[in-house]
Protein backbone atom coordinates (compact mmCIF):
# COMPACT_ATOMS: atom_id res chain seq x y z
CA UNK A 1 0.00 0.00 0.00
CA UNK A 2 2.81 2.43 0.82
CA UNK A 3 4.07 2.20 -2.76
CA UNK A 4 0.70 3.17 -4.27
CA UNK A 5 1.73 6.80 -4.72
CA UNK A 6 4.87 5.78 -6.59
CA UNK A 7 2.96 3.29 -8.76
CA UNK A 8 0.23 5.77 -9.59
CA UNK A 9 2.79 8.45 -10.43
CA UNK A 10 4.54 6.02 -12.78
CA UNK A 11 1.30 5.18 -14.55
CA UNK A 12 0.80 8.90 -15.18
CA UNK A 13 4.43 9.44 -16.21
CA UNK A 14 3.56 9.21 -19.89
CA UNK A 15 -0.23 9.42 -19.97
CA UNK A 16 -0.53 9.10 -23.75
CA UNK A 17 1.56 5.93 -23.83
CA UNK A 18 -0.27 4.43 -20.87
CA UNK A 19 -3.63 5.31 -22.42
CA UNK A 20 -2.64 3.77 -25.75
CA UNK A 21 -1.44 0.57 -24.08
CA UNK A 22 -4.59 0.35 -21.99
CA UNK A 23 -6.67 0.95 -25.13
CA UNK A 24 -4.81 -1.77 -27.04
CA UNK A 25 -5.42 -4.27 -24.24
CA UNK A 26 -9.04 -3.13 -23.92
CA UNK A 27 -9.70 -3.59 -27.64
CA UNK A 28 -8.09 -7.05 -27.62
CA UNK A 29 -10.21 -8.16 -24.67
CA UNK A 30 -13.35 -6.62 -26.13
CA UNK A 31 -12.69 -8.68 -29.25
CA UNK A 32 -12.07 -11.76 -27.14
CA UNK A 33 -15.39 -11.24 -25.32
CA UNK A 34 -17.13 -10.60 -28.64
CA UNK A 35 -15.77 -13.84 -30.13
CA UNK A 36 -16.80 -15.78 -27.03
CA UNK A 37 -20.27 -14.25 -27.15
CA UNK A 38 -20.49 -15.11 -30.86
CA UNK A 39 -19.61 -18.71 -30.05
CA UNK A 40 -22.27 -18.62 -27.40
CA UNK A 41 -24.75 -17.31 -29.98
CA UNK A 42 -23.86 -20.07 -32.40
CA UNK A 43 -24.44 -22.59 -29.65
CA UNK A 44 -27.79 -21.06 -28.68
CA UNK A 45 -30.16 -23.78 -27.73
CA UNK A 46 -27.47 -26.35 -27.01
CA UNK A 47 -26.96 -25.31 -23.43
CA UNK A 48 -30.68 -25.00 -22.77
CA UNK A 49 -31.40 -28.36 -24.38
CA UNK A 50 -33.54 -30.74 -22.44
CA UNK A 51 -32.06 -34.19 -22.02
CA UNK A 52 -35.54 -35.51 -21.23
CA UNK A 53 -36.54 -34.83 -24.84
CA UNK A 54 -35.56 -36.85 -27.87
CA UNK A 55 -35.59 -35.86 -31.50
CA UNK A 56 -36.41 -38.47 -34.11
CA UNK A 57 -35.54 -37.69 -37.72
CA UNK A 58 -34.81 -39.46 -40.97
CA UNK A 59 -31.63 -41.48 -40.70
CA UNK A 60 -30.45 -40.41 -44.18
CA UNK A 61 -30.61 -36.68 -43.61
CA UNK A 62 -32.53 -34.00 -41.78
CA UNK A 63 -33.96 -32.79 -45.07
CA UNK A 64 -35.51 -36.20 -45.72
CA UNK A 65 -39.02 -36.52 -44.18
CA UNK A 66 -40.75 -39.08 -42.02
CA UNK A 67 -44.37 -40.19 -42.37
CA UNK A 68 -46.86 -38.63 -39.95
CA UNK A 69 -48.17 -42.17 -39.53
CA UNK A 70 -45.13 -42.95 -37.35
CA UNK A 71 -46.54 -40.90 -34.50
CA UNK A 72 -48.71 -43.62 -32.82
CA UNK A 73 -45.85 -46.11 -33.12
CA UNK A 74 -43.41 -43.72 -31.49
CA UNK A 75 -45.96 -42.91 -28.82
CA UNK A 76 -46.30 -46.64 -28.04
CA UNK A 77 -42.63 -47.10 -27.17
CA UNK A 78 -42.14 -47.78 -23.44
CA UNK A 79 -40.61 -44.76 -21.73
CA UNK A 80 -42.39 -42.17 -23.88
CA UNK A 81 -44.62 -39.93 -21.76
CA UNK A 82 -48.40 -39.93 -22.39
CA UNK A 83 -49.13 -37.44 -25.20
CA UNK A 84 -45.38 -37.21 -25.40
CA UNK A 85 -44.92 -36.91 -29.14
CA UNK A 86 -45.07 -33.82 -31.30
CA UNK A 87 -43.89 -33.10 -34.81
CA UNK A 88 -42.91 -30.31 -37.07
CA UNK A 89 -41.45 -29.35 -40.43
CA UNK A 90 -39.06 -26.66 -41.46
CA UNK A 91 -41.05 -24.03 -43.30
CA UNK A 92 -38.14 -22.01 -44.66
CA UNK A 93 -39.58 -18.76 -45.96
CA UNK A 94 -38.39 -15.18 -46.19
CA UNK A 95 -40.01 -12.18 -44.64
CA UNK A 96 -40.75 -10.19 -47.75
CA UNK A 97 -40.26 -6.73 -46.26
CA UNK A 98 -36.88 -7.56 -44.71
CA UNK A 99 -35.23 -10.40 -46.58
CA UNK A 100 -31.93 -9.92 -44.77
CA UNK A 101 -33.50 -10.81 -41.46
CA UNK A 102 -33.39 -14.53 -40.84
CA UNK A 103 -35.55 -16.27 -38.30
CA UNK A 104 -36.54 -19.92 -38.10
CA UNK A 105 -40.06 -21.04 -38.95
CA UNK A 106 -41.57 -24.35 -37.98
CA UNK A 107 -44.99 -25.71 -38.83
CA UNK A 108 -45.97 -27.78 -35.80
CA UNK A 109 -48.93 -29.70 -34.39
CA UNK A 110 -50.62 -27.47 -31.85
CA UNK A 111 -52.19 -30.21 -29.71
CA UNK A 112 -49.01 -31.34 -27.91
CA UNK A 113 -46.10 -29.32 -29.24
CA UNK A 114 -46.26 -26.49 -26.70
CA UNK A 115 -46.85 -28.94 -23.84
CA UNK A 116 -43.63 -30.71 -24.72
CA UNK A 117 -41.84 -27.33 -24.97
CA UNK A 118 -43.09 -25.57 -21.83
CA UNK A 119 -40.19 -23.11 -22.05
CA UNK A 120 -42.05 -21.40 -24.91
CA UNK A 121 -44.25 -19.18 -22.79
CA UNK A 122 -47.40 -17.98 -24.55
CA UNK A 123 -50.23 -16.27 -22.66
CA UNK A 124 -53.23 -18.67 -22.52
CA UNK A 125 -55.60 -16.32 -24.37
CA UNK A 126 -53.08 -15.91 -27.18
CA UNK A 127 -52.57 -19.65 -27.34
CA UNK A 128 -56.32 -20.15 -27.61
CA UNK A 129 -56.52 -17.59 -30.40
CA UNK A 130 -53.67 -19.33 -32.23
CA UNK A 131 -55.36 -22.71 -31.90
CA UNK A 132 -58.58 -21.32 -33.29
CA UNK A 133 -57.00 -19.72 -36.36
CA UNK A 134 -55.55 -22.07 -38.98
CA UNK A 135 -53.60 -19.17 -40.47
CA UNK A 136 -52.44 -18.11 -37.07
CA UNK A 137 -48.83 -18.04 -35.95
CA UNK A 138 -46.79 -17.46 -32.82
CA UNK A 139 -43.58 -15.46 -33.01
CA UNK A 140 -40.79 -14.77 -30.57
CA UNK A 141 -40.67 -11.39 -28.88
CA UNK A 142 -37.41 -10.53 -30.64
CA UNK A 143 -38.96 -11.26 -34.02
CA UNK A 144 -41.92 -9.06 -33.14
CA UNK A 145 -39.63 -6.24 -32.05
CA UNK A 146 -37.45 -6.52 -35.13
CA UNK A 147 -40.41 -6.59 -37.52
CA UNK A 148 -42.42 -4.04 -35.56
CA UNK A 149 -45.35 -6.41 -35.30
CA UNK A 150 -47.88 -7.07 -32.57
CA UNK A 151 -50.63 -9.55 -31.84
CA UNK A 152 -53.39 -9.14 -34.43
CA UNK A 153 -51.07 -8.00 -37.22
CA UNK A 154 -50.56 -10.07 -40.34
CA UNK A 155 -47.23 -11.14 -41.71
CA UNK A 156 -46.44 -12.01 -45.33
CA UNK A 157 -43.80 -14.67 -45.98
CA UNK A 158 -42.38 -15.68 -49.33
CA UNK A 159 -41.86 -19.42 -49.50
CA UNK A 160 -38.51 -20.79 -50.60
CA UNK A 161 -39.48 -24.45 -50.11
CA UNK A 162 -43.22 -24.07 -50.49
CA UNK A 163 -43.77 -21.55 -53.30
CA UNK A 164 -45.98 -18.53 -53.13
CA UNK A 165 -46.66 -15.76 -50.69
CA UNK A 166 -48.09 -16.94 -47.39
CA UNK A 167 -50.11 -14.66 -45.21
CA UNK A 168 -50.25 -15.45 -41.49
CA UNK A 169 -52.00 -13.78 -38.58
CA UNK A 170 -49.93 -13.15 -35.51
CA UNK A 171 -51.96 -14.62 -32.65
CA UNK A 172 -49.31 -14.93 -30.02
CA UNK A 173 -45.94 -13.58 -28.99
CA UNK A 174 -43.80 -15.80 -26.81
CA UNK A 175 -40.96 -15.17 -24.44
CA UNK A 176 -38.70 -18.03 -23.42
CA UNK A 177 -38.81 -18.94 -19.76
CA UNK A 178 -35.03 -19.23 -19.63
CA UNK A 179 -32.01 -17.72 -21.34
CA UNK A 180 -30.53 -19.72 -24.18
CA UNK A 181 -33.86 -20.93 -25.59
CA UNK A 182 -34.05 -19.89 -29.25
CA UNK A 183 -36.44 -16.96 -29.51
CA UNK A 184 -36.07 -15.81 -33.08
CA UNK A 185 -38.61 -18.37 -34.16
CA UNK A 186 -42.05 -18.49 -35.74
CA UNK A 187 -44.51 -21.35 -35.15
CA UNK A 188 -47.24 -22.12 -37.70
CA UNK A 189 -49.99 -24.74 -37.95
CA UNK A 190 -48.70 -27.92 -39.52
CA UNK A 191 -52.13 -28.80 -40.88
CA UNK A 192 -52.46 -25.52 -42.71
CA UNK A 193 -49.05 -25.85 -44.36
CA UNK A 194 -49.54 -29.55 -45.07
CA UNK A 195 -52.85 -29.03 -46.86
CA UNK A 196 -51.29 -26.43 -49.09
CA UNK A 197 -48.54 -28.77 -50.24
CA UNK A 198 -48.71 -31.02 -53.33
CA UNK A 199 -50.50 -34.24 -52.53
CA UNK A 200 -47.29 -36.25 -52.92
CA UNK A 201 -45.70 -34.32 -50.07
CA UNK A 202 -48.62 -34.35 -47.70
CA UNK A 203 -48.51 -36.38 -44.51
CA UNK A 204 -44.79 -35.99 -44.09
CA UNK A 205 -43.01 -34.35 -41.16
CA UNK A 206 -39.46 -33.23 -40.65
CA UNK A 207 -38.92 -34.45 -37.11
CA UNK A 208 -40.61 -35.79 -34.02
CA UNK A 209 -40.05 -34.37 -30.57
CA UNK A 210 -40.44 -37.04 -27.91
CA UNK A 211 -40.97 -36.36 -24.21
CA UNK A 212 -39.63 -39.08 -21.93
CA UNK A 213 -41.37 -40.46 -18.91
CA UNK A 214 -39.82 -39.81 -15.52
CA UNK A 215 -36.95 -42.24 -15.01
CA UNK A 216 -36.86 -43.47 -18.60
CA UNK A 217 -33.42 -44.13 -20.06
CA UNK A 218 -32.98 -41.82 -23.09
CA UNK A 219 -30.53 -44.14 -24.86
CA UNK A 220 -32.77 -47.17 -24.43
CA UNK A 221 -35.89 -45.33 -25.63
CA UNK A 222 -33.98 -43.89 -28.61
CA UNK A 223 -32.78 -47.38 -29.57
CA UNK A 224 -36.32 -48.76 -29.21
CA UNK A 225 -37.73 -46.07 -31.49
CA UNK A 226 -35.09 -46.63 -34.15
CA UNK A 227 -35.54 -50.41 -33.89
CA UNK A 228 -39.21 -49.98 -34.75
CA UNK A 229 -38.35 -48.58 -38.15
CA UNK A 230 -35.23 -50.56 -38.87
CA UNK A 231 -36.80 -52.34 -41.83
CA UNK A 232 -38.92 -49.43 -43.00
CA UNK A 233 -38.32 -47.35 -46.11
CA UNK A 234 -38.00 -44.42 -43.72
CA UNK A 235 -35.35 -45.40 -41.18
CA UNK A 236 -35.03 -43.12 -38.20
CA UNK A 237 -32.29 -41.65 -36.12
CA UNK A 238 -33.22 -40.73 -32.58
CA UNK A 239 -30.99 -38.76 -30.24
CA UNK A 240 -31.31 -36.41 -27.31
CA UNK A 241 -32.21 -32.84 -28.07
CA UNK A 242 -28.75 -31.71 -26.98
CA UNK A 243 -27.03 -34.11 -29.40
CA UNK A 244 -29.42 -33.02 -32.14
CA UNK A 245 -28.64 -29.33 -31.65
CA UNK A 246 -24.92 -29.98 -31.34
CA UNK A 247 -25.04 -31.63 -34.77
CA UNK A 248 -26.09 -28.25 -36.21
CA UNK A 249 -23.23 -26.54 -34.47
CA UNK A 250 -20.75 -29.10 -35.74
CA UNK A 251 -21.85 -28.30 -39.30
CA UNK A 252 -19.84 -25.10 -38.94
CA UNK A 253 -16.69 -27.18 -38.75
CA UNK A 254 -14.30 -26.42 -35.93
CA UNK A 255 -15.46 -22.85 -35.65
CA UNK A 256 -14.63 -22.84 -31.95
CA UNK A 257 -10.98 -23.54 -32.70
CA UNK A 258 -10.93 -20.93 -35.46
CA UNK A 259 -12.45 -18.17 -33.34
CA UNK A 260 -10.25 -19.02 -30.37
CA UNK A 261 -7.18 -19.03 -32.61
CA UNK A 262 -8.06 -15.53 -33.78
CA UNK A 263 -8.55 -14.45 -30.17
CA UNK A 264 -5.21 -15.95 -29.12
CA UNK A 265 -3.40 -14.26 -32.02
CA UNK A 266 -4.82 -10.89 -31.03
CA UNK A 267 -3.93 -11.37 -27.37
CA UNK A 268 -0.39 -12.44 -28.28
CA UNK A 269 0.07 -9.38 -30.47
CA UNK A 270 -1.13 -7.11 -27.69
CA UNK A 271 1.21 -8.88 -25.30
CA UNK A 272 4.13 -7.92 -27.55
CA UNK A 273 2.89 -4.32 -27.68
CA UNK A 274 2.55 -4.16 -23.91
CA UNK A 275 5.97 -5.77 -23.40
CA UNK A 276 7.51 -3.24 -25.78
CA UNK A 277 5.89 -0.42 -23.84
CA UNK A 278 7.19 -1.74 -20.55
CA UNK A 279 10.65 -2.18 -22.03
CA UNK A 280 10.66 1.43 -23.22
CA UNK A 281 9.46 2.55 -19.84
CA UNK A 282 12.29 0.68 -18.09
CA UNK A 283 14.93 2.03 -20.48
CA UNK A 284 13.75 5.55 -19.77
CA UNK A 285 14.04 4.92 -16.06
CA UNK A 286 17.47 3.31 -15.96
CA UNK A 287 18.95 6.15 -13.91
CA UNK A 288 15.94 6.14 -11.59
CA UNK A 289 16.31 2.43 -11.00
CA UNK A 290 19.94 3.11 -10.14
CA UNK A 291 18.83 5.76 -7.67
CA UNK A 292 16.33 3.41 -6.06
CA UNK A 293 19.05 0.80 -5.67
CA UNK A 294 21.40 3.39 -4.22
CA UNK A 295 18.75 4.30 -1.66
CA UNK A 296 18.64 0.64 -0.63
CA UNK A 297 15.77 -0.83 -2.63
CA UNK A 298 16.30 -4.57 -3.02
CA UNK A 299 16.13 -6.20 -6.45
CA UNK A 300 13.01 -8.13 -5.48
CA UNK A 301 11.24 -4.90 -4.50
CA UNK A 302 12.13 -3.33 -7.85
CA UNK A 303 10.87 -6.42 -9.72
CA UNK A 304 7.68 -6.36 -7.68
CA UNK A 305 7.05 -2.66 -8.29
CA UNK A 306 7.48 -3.06 -12.04
CA UNK A 307 5.34 -6.18 -12.18
CA UNK A 308 2.56 -4.49 -10.24
CA UNK A 309 2.77 -1.50 -12.55
CA UNK A 310 2.47 -3.75 -15.62
CA UNK A 311 -0.29 -5.72 -13.90
CA UNK A 312 -2.22 -2.52 -13.22
CA UNK A 313 -2.00 -1.52 -16.89
CA UNK A 314 -3.26 -4.97 -17.85
CA UNK A 315 -6.08 -4.91 -15.32
CA UNK A 316 -7.22 -1.40 -16.25
CA UNK A 317 -7.22 -2.46 -19.92
CA UNK A 318 -9.08 -5.61 -18.96
CA UNK A 319 -11.66 -3.70 -16.94
CA UNK A 320 -12.28 -1.26 -19.80
CA UNK A 321 -12.43 -4.01 -22.47
CA UNK A 322 -14.62 -6.37 -20.46
CA UNK A 323 -16.78 -3.50 -19.18
CA UNK A 324 -17.43 -2.29 -22.71
CA UNK A 325 -18.16 -5.83 -23.86
CA UNK A 326 -20.65 -6.39 -21.03
CA UNK A 327 -22.35 -3.05 -21.71
CA UNK A 328 -22.36 -3.24 -25.51
CA UNK A 329 -23.17 -6.90 -26.06
CA UNK A 330 -26.69 -7.04 -24.71
CA UNK A 331 -28.51 -9.09 -27.33
CA UNK A 332 -26.87 -7.11 -30.09
CA UNK A 333 -28.22 -8.08 -33.53
CA UNK A 334 -25.63 -8.05 -36.27
CA UNK A 335 -26.51 -7.06 -39.86
CA UNK A 336 -26.29 -10.78 -40.68
CA UNK A 337 -29.25 -11.37 -38.41
CA UNK A 338 -27.19 -13.20 -35.77
CA UNK A 339 -28.02 -11.99 -32.29
CA UNK A 340 -25.06 -11.80 -29.95
CA UNK A 341 -26.14 -12.61 -26.39
CA UNK A 342 -24.52 -11.10 -23.29
CA UNK A 343 -20.96 -12.26 -22.76
CA UNK A 344 -20.95 -15.39 -20.57
CA UNK A 345 -19.63 -14.67 -17.07
CA UNK A 346 -16.94 -17.33 -17.46
CA UNK A 347 -15.67 -15.59 -20.61
CA UNK A 348 -15.45 -12.27 -18.74
CA UNK A 349 -13.50 -14.01 -15.99
CA UNK A 350 -11.14 -15.59 -18.53
CA UNK A 351 -10.69 -12.25 -20.29
CA UNK A 352 -9.83 -10.59 -17.01
CA UNK A 353 -7.37 -13.38 -16.26
CA UNK A 354 -5.81 -12.89 -19.69
CA UNK A 355 -5.51 -9.16 -19.00
CA UNK A 356 -3.68 -9.87 -15.76
CA UNK A 357 -1.46 -12.44 -17.47
CA UNK A 358 -0.68 -10.01 -20.31
CA UNK A 359 0.36 -7.41 -17.75
CA UNK A 360 2.50 -9.80 -15.74
CA UNK A 361 4.22 -11.42 -18.71
CA UNK A 362 4.91 -8.05 -20.37
CA UNK A 363 6.42 -6.74 -17.15
CA UNK A 364 8.47 -9.79 -16.26
CA UNK A 365 11.34 -9.37 -18.75
CA UNK A 366 11.85 -5.61 -18.23
CA UNK A 367 11.64 -5.91 -14.45
CA UNK A 368 14.22 -8.70 -14.32
CA UNK A 369 16.51 -6.68 -16.61
CA UNK A 370 16.07 -3.65 -14.36
CA UNK A 371 16.86 -5.65 -11.26
CA UNK A 372 20.06 -7.01 -12.82
CA UNK A 373 21.31 -3.56 -13.68
CA UNK A 374 24.30 -2.61 -11.55
CA UNK A 375 24.02 0.65 -9.63
CA UNK A 376 27.24 2.03 -11.08
CA UNK A 377 26.19 1.18 -14.65
CA UNK A 378 22.80 2.78 -14.08
CA UNK A 379 24.38 6.02 -12.85
CA UNK A 380 26.72 6.12 -15.84
CA UNK A 381 23.65 6.31 -18.11
CA UNK A 382 22.43 9.59 -16.66
Amino acid at each position, binding site marked *: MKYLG*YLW*ANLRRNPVRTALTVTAIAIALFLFCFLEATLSALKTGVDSSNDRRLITRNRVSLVQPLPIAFRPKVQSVPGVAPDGTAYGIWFGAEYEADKDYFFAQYAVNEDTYFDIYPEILVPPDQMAAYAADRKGCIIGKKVAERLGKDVGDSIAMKGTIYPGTWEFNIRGIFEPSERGVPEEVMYLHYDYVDESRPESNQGLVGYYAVQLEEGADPARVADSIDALFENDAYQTKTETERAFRMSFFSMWGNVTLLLRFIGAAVIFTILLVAANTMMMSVRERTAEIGTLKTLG*FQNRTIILLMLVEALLIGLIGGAVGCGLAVLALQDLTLPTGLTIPPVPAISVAIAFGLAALTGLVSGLGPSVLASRLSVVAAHRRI
Partner: protein
Amino acid sequence: MAEALVRVDDVTKIYSTRGGEVPVLDHLDLEVPKGDFLALMGPSGSGKSTLLNLIGGLDSPTSGRVTALGQTISAMSSRQLADWRSRHVGFIFQFYNLIPVLTAAQNVEMPLLLTKMSKAERRRQVEVALGIVGLSDRVKHKPSELSGGQQQRVAIARALVIDPELILADEPTGDLDAQSAKDVLGLLTRLNEEYEKTIIMVTHDPNAAQVARRTVHLDKGVLSSGVHA
Protein backbone atom coordinates in the same frame (compact mmCIF):
# COMPACT_ATOMS: atom_id res chain seq x y z
CA MET B 1 42.00 11.52 16.98
CA ALA B 2 38.34 10.51 16.65
CA GLU B 3 37.54 6.91 15.87
CA ALA B 4 37.52 6.01 12.15
CA LEU B 5 34.04 5.82 10.68
CA VAL B 6 35.40 4.68 7.33
CA ARG B 7 38.59 2.71 6.66
CA VAL B 8 39.91 1.84 3.24
CA ASP B 9 42.74 -0.68 3.49
CA ASP B 10 44.98 -1.52 0.56
CA VAL B 11 42.10 -1.26 -1.92
CA THR B 12 42.63 -1.91 -5.58
CA LYS B 13 39.94 -1.57 -8.20
CA ILE B 14 40.43 -2.81 -11.73
CA TYR B 15 37.71 -2.61 -14.37
CA SER B 16 37.71 -5.26 -17.08
CA THR B 17 36.79 -3.83 -20.46
CA ARG B 18 36.92 -5.15 -24.02
CA GLY B 19 40.15 -3.25 -24.48
CA GLY B 20 41.69 -4.97 -21.45
CA GLU B 21 41.97 -4.27 -17.75
CA VAL B 22 41.81 -0.68 -16.53
CA PRO B 23 43.28 -0.10 -13.06
CA VAL B 24 41.44 2.72 -11.28
CA LEU B 25 42.56 2.50 -7.66
CA ASP B 26 45.98 1.21 -6.74
CA HIS B 27 46.54 -0.16 -3.21
CA LEU B 28 44.81 2.81 -1.67
CA ASP B 29 44.52 3.51 2.06
CA LEU B 30 42.22 6.09 3.60
CA GLU B 31 40.77 6.75 7.01
CA VAL B 32 37.82 9.05 7.64
CA PRO B 33 37.15 9.85 11.30
CA LYS B 34 33.65 10.24 12.64
CA GLY B 35 32.42 13.83 12.21
CA ASP B 36 34.89 14.57 9.42
CA PHE B 37 34.03 16.56 6.32
CA LEU B 38 36.39 15.28 3.66
CA ALA B 39 36.75 16.75 0.20
CA LEU B 40 38.04 14.30 -2.38
CA MET B 41 39.65 16.11 -5.29
CA GLY B 42 41.40 15.04 -8.43
CA PRO B 43 41.27 15.20 -12.20
CA SER B 44 38.69 13.34 -14.24
CA GLY B 45 39.36 9.61 -14.30
CA SER B 46 41.45 9.73 -11.15
CA GLY B 47 39.09 7.32 -9.37
CA LYS B 48 37.26 9.74 -7.04
CA SER B 49 33.78 8.49 -7.84
CA THR B 50 34.96 4.88 -7.81
CA LEU B 51 36.33 5.38 -4.31
CA LEU B 52 33.06 7.01 -3.25
CA ASN B 53 31.11 4.08 -4.71
CA LEU B 54 33.25 1.60 -2.78
CA ILE B 55 32.77 3.50 0.48
CA GLY B 56 29.02 3.70 -0.17
CA GLY B 57 28.74 -0.01 -0.89
CA LEU B 58 27.66 0.57 -4.48
CA ASP B 59 30.62 -1.33 -5.88
CA SER B 60 33.13 -3.92 -4.63
CA PRO B 61 36.92 -3.63 -4.64
CA THR B 62 39.03 -6.01 -6.70
CA SER B 63 41.19 -6.49 -3.62
CA GLY B 64 41.57 -4.90 -0.21
CA ARG B 65 39.03 -4.09 2.45
CA VAL B 66 36.50 -1.32 3.04
CA THR B 67 35.17 -0.93 6.55
CA ALA B 68 32.43 1.52 7.47
CA LEU B 69 30.62 1.96 10.78
CA GLY B 70 32.46 -1.05 12.10
CA GLN B 71 31.31 -3.37 9.34
CA THR B 72 33.39 -4.82 6.52
CA ILE B 73 31.17 -3.75 3.66
CA SER B 74 33.53 -5.14 1.00
CA ALA B 75 32.55 -8.62 2.19
CA MET B 76 28.79 -8.05 2.15
CA SER B 77 26.37 -9.53 -0.38
CA SER B 78 24.44 -7.15 -2.62
CA ARG B 79 21.33 -7.71 -0.51
CA GLN B 80 23.18 -6.93 2.71
CA LEU B 81 24.71 -3.86 1.10
CA ALA B 82 21.32 -2.54 -0.02
CA ASP B 83 20.00 -2.98 3.50
CA TRP B 84 23.10 -1.33 4.98
CA ARG B 85 22.87 1.65 2.62
CA SER B 86 19.20 2.15 3.41
CA ARG B 87 19.98 2.53 7.12
CA HIS B 88 23.38 4.24 7.30
CA VAL B 89 24.25 6.22 4.18
CA GLY B 90 22.76 9.28 2.49
CA PHE B 91 23.71 9.95 -1.12
CA ILE B 92 23.81 13.26 -2.96
CA PHE B 93 24.44 13.32 -6.72
CA GLN B 94 25.60 15.96 -9.17
CA PHE B 95 22.35 15.79 -11.16
CA TYR B 96 20.14 15.41 -8.06
CA ASN B 97 18.65 12.08 -9.28
CA LEU B 98 15.17 12.96 -8.13
CA ILE B 99 12.23 10.97 -9.46
CA PRO B 100 10.56 13.43 -11.84
CA VAL B 101 7.00 12.17 -11.40
CA LEU B 102 7.05 12.52 -7.63
CA THR B 103 6.65 15.66 -5.55
CA ALA B 104 9.45 16.96 -3.32
CA ALA B 105 7.81 15.33 -0.30
CA GLN B 106 7.33 12.01 -2.11
CA ASN B 107 10.96 12.05 -3.26
CA VAL B 108 12.17 12.65 0.27
CA GLU B 109 9.84 9.93 1.55
CA MET B 110 11.25 7.24 -0.78
CA PRO B 111 14.02 5.96 1.57
CA LEU B 112 11.51 5.81 4.43
CA LEU B 113 9.32 3.39 2.44
CA LEU B 114 11.98 0.80 3.22
CA THR B 115 11.42 1.22 6.95
CA LYS B 116 8.54 0.07 9.11
CA MET B 117 7.48 3.63 9.92
CA SER B 118 3.80 4.50 9.84
CA LYS B 119 2.52 6.97 7.29
CA ALA B 120 2.22 9.66 9.96
CA GLU B 121 5.80 9.08 11.13
CA ARG B 122 7.07 9.22 7.58
CA ARG B 123 5.22 12.47 6.98
CA ARG B 124 6.70 13.97 10.13
CA GLN B 125 10.24 12.94 9.15
CA VAL B 126 9.77 14.35 5.65
CA GLU B 127 8.55 17.68 7.08
CA VAL B 128 11.60 17.86 9.36
CA ALA B 129 14.04 17.06 6.53
CA LEU B 130 12.48 19.56 4.14
CA GLY B 131 12.44 22.11 6.96
CA ILE B 132 16.19 21.69 7.52
CA VAL B 133 16.91 22.41 3.84
CA GLY B 134 14.45 25.34 3.86
CA LEU B 135 11.88 23.89 1.47
CA SER B 136 8.85 23.51 3.72
CA ASP B 137 6.86 25.58 1.24
CA ARG B 138 7.74 23.38 -1.73
CA VAL B 139 6.50 19.98 -0.54
CA LYS B 140 4.02 19.50 -3.36
CA HIS B 141 6.25 20.77 -6.13
CA LYS B 142 7.66 18.34 -8.64
CA PRO B 143 11.36 18.58 -9.59
CA SER B 144 10.50 20.27 -12.89
CA GLU B 145 8.86 23.07 -10.89
CA LEU B 146 11.99 23.70 -8.83
CA SER B 147 15.29 25.42 -9.60
CA GLY B 148 18.53 23.42 -9.73
CA GLY B 149 19.52 24.63 -6.28
CA GLN B 150 16.11 23.71 -4.85
CA GLN B 151 16.27 20.29 -6.46
CA GLN B 152 19.67 19.69 -4.90
CA ARG B 153 18.26 20.73 -1.53
CA VAL B 154 15.44 18.21 -1.98
CA ALA B 155 18.11 15.60 -2.74
CA ILE B 156 19.93 16.61 0.45
CA ALA B 157 16.68 16.27 2.39
CA ARG B 158 16.25 12.80 0.90
CA ALA B 159 19.80 11.89 2.00
CA LEU B 160 19.11 13.31 5.43
CA VAL B 161 15.67 11.86 6.10
CA ILE B 162 16.94 8.48 7.33
CA ASP B 163 19.29 10.27 9.75
CA PRO B 164 22.42 8.58 8.34
CA GLU B 165 25.82 8.58 10.01
CA LEU B 166 27.53 9.02 6.66
CA ILE B 167 26.69 11.32 3.74
CA LEU B 168 28.38 10.79 0.40
CA ALA B 169 28.16 13.63 -2.08
CA ASP B 170 29.37 13.26 -5.68
CA GLU B 171 29.98 16.71 -7.19
CA PRO B 172 26.99 18.21 -5.36
CA THR B 173 27.63 21.69 -6.78
CA GLY B 174 28.76 20.59 -10.22
CA ASP B 175 25.51 21.53 -11.92
CA LEU B 176 24.66 24.65 -9.92
CA ASP B 177 25.15 28.39 -10.31
CA ALA B 178 27.44 30.16 -7.84
CA GLN B 179 24.73 31.25 -5.42
CA SER B 180 23.01 27.87 -5.36
CA ALA B 181 26.38 26.16 -4.92
CA LYS B 182 27.10 28.42 -1.98
CA ASP B 183 23.72 27.58 -0.41
CA VAL B 184 24.26 23.85 -0.86
CA LEU B 185 27.78 24.01 0.58
CA GLY B 186 26.44 26.02 3.51
CA LEU B 187 23.85 23.35 4.08
CA LEU B 188 26.45 20.58 4.00
CA THR B 189 28.61 22.51 6.46
CA ARG B 190 25.61 22.86 8.74
CA LEU B 191 24.88 19.15 8.52
CA ASN B 192 28.49 18.44 9.47
CA GLU B 193 28.79 20.97 12.27
CA GLU B 194 25.29 21.11 13.71
CA TYR B 195 24.06 17.55 13.06
CA GLU B 196 27.51 15.91 13.28
CA LYS B 197 27.18 14.06 10.01
CA THR B 198 30.34 12.62 8.52
CA ILE B 199 30.56 13.83 4.93
CA ILE B 200 32.75 12.71 2.06
CA MET B 201 32.41 15.00 -0.93
CA VAL B 202 33.89 14.46 -4.37
CA THR B 203 34.50 17.77 -6.12
CA HIS B 204 36.48 19.42 -8.87
CA ASP B 205 35.84 22.83 -7.41
CA PRO B 206 38.58 24.19 -5.09
CA ASN B 207 36.06 26.66 -3.63
CA ALA B 208 33.78 23.80 -2.70
CA ALA B 209 36.69 21.90 -1.18
CA GLN B 210 37.48 24.86 1.03
CA VAL B 211 34.35 24.31 3.15
CA ALA B 212 35.55 20.82 4.05
CA ARG B 213 37.63 20.16 7.15
CA ARG B 214 40.09 18.15 5.13
CA THR B 215 40.97 17.64 1.48
CA VAL B 216 42.71 14.70 -0.15
CA HIS B 217 43.86 14.54 -3.76
CA LEU B 218 43.59 11.47 -5.86
CA ASP B 219 45.59 11.05 -9.03
CA LYS B 220 45.83 7.92 -11.16
CA GLY B 221 44.37 5.82 -8.38
CA VAL B 222 46.78 7.00 -5.72
CA LEU B 223 46.18 9.44 -2.89
CA SER B 224 48.81 12.06 -3.49
CA SER B 225 48.31 14.45 -0.63
CA GLY B 226 46.16 15.26 2.36
CA VAL B 227 45.57 18.77 3.51
CA HIS B 228 43.62 20.01 6.47
CA ALA B 229 41.48 22.94 5.50
